[in-house]
């Protein structure tokens, strides 16, 4: 089973990289971008086949390592 994890900065946390992207896009003439936020995408290949068990384990991975919950949110997709 594959787990896809998106880690994003929490709302309210300044994202200088996102700001730089937003800036660059507007400099390049791309209008209509109100805001950009940059995050991380992590893909895991899991041995686990049970969805609930997989979710629980990936959730723990996120809390313990993959995301820093002081500043980051995460979401998990299983496939």
């Amino acid at each position: 089973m594959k787990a896809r994890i998106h880690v994003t900065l929490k709302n309210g946390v300044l994202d200088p990289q996102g700001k730089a992207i937003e800036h660059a896009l507007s400099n390049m003439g791309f209008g209509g971008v109100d805001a950009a936020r940059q995050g991380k995408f992590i893909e895991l290949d899991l041995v686990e086949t049970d969805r609930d068990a997989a979710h629980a384990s990936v959730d723990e991975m996120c809390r313990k390592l993959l995301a820093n919950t002081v500043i980051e949110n995460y979401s998990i997709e299983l496939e």
Partner: protein
Amino acid sequence: MKSAVIVFPGSNCDRDMAVALEKITGTKPLMVWHQEHTFDTVDFVALPGGFSYGDYLRCGAMSARSNVMKEVIKRAEDGVPTFGVCNGFQVLTETGLLPGALMRNANLHFVCKDVRMSVENTDTMFTSDYAGDSEITVPVAHHDGNYFADDDTLDRLEGEGQVAFRYLDDINGAQRGIAGITNARGNILGMMPHPERMIEPAFGGSDGRKLFTSVMNRLG
């Protein structure tokens, strides 16, 4: 004063820290590899700067979960003076020993230069020798030194005297100019600037020395 320097794969200021500790305390520190589960009893634990695990994922994230950190956390919670510089500060926030997080510098560039700081609290075991110094200069060298915490945490840090050092200029976008903080108990200090790089005139100054002498004095 017997100290330990924790070495992670990718630490690169471990030698600098060891040299500074030996020069100032007169005793060679113990170098402890990240895979160790325990180490000899010491009076002082230093987490050096560098790019542990390449700063991949998040600065300090993987080191914070290494074997040796379980032991470091235990001792820090028991009151052993624990000091993290730069990457070491990042590791301390990742373990939760210190609040907040260190984010990418606001201008996105790595910055290496001398910075002016105020010593905000000279009543800590790390800063007592700075009493009377209105301003000190110590270099920074980091890409992710932009201190972040929510407003409540910041207010608490300020209120409890946990802000140890504050930049006098905007260096990296850090909230309220915070350069270094202690825990509530006052035995853990994390800071982005490198006092170990400012311990003799040949480096451009000696303002870093007092941090180490403060601890020595406290420990007697």
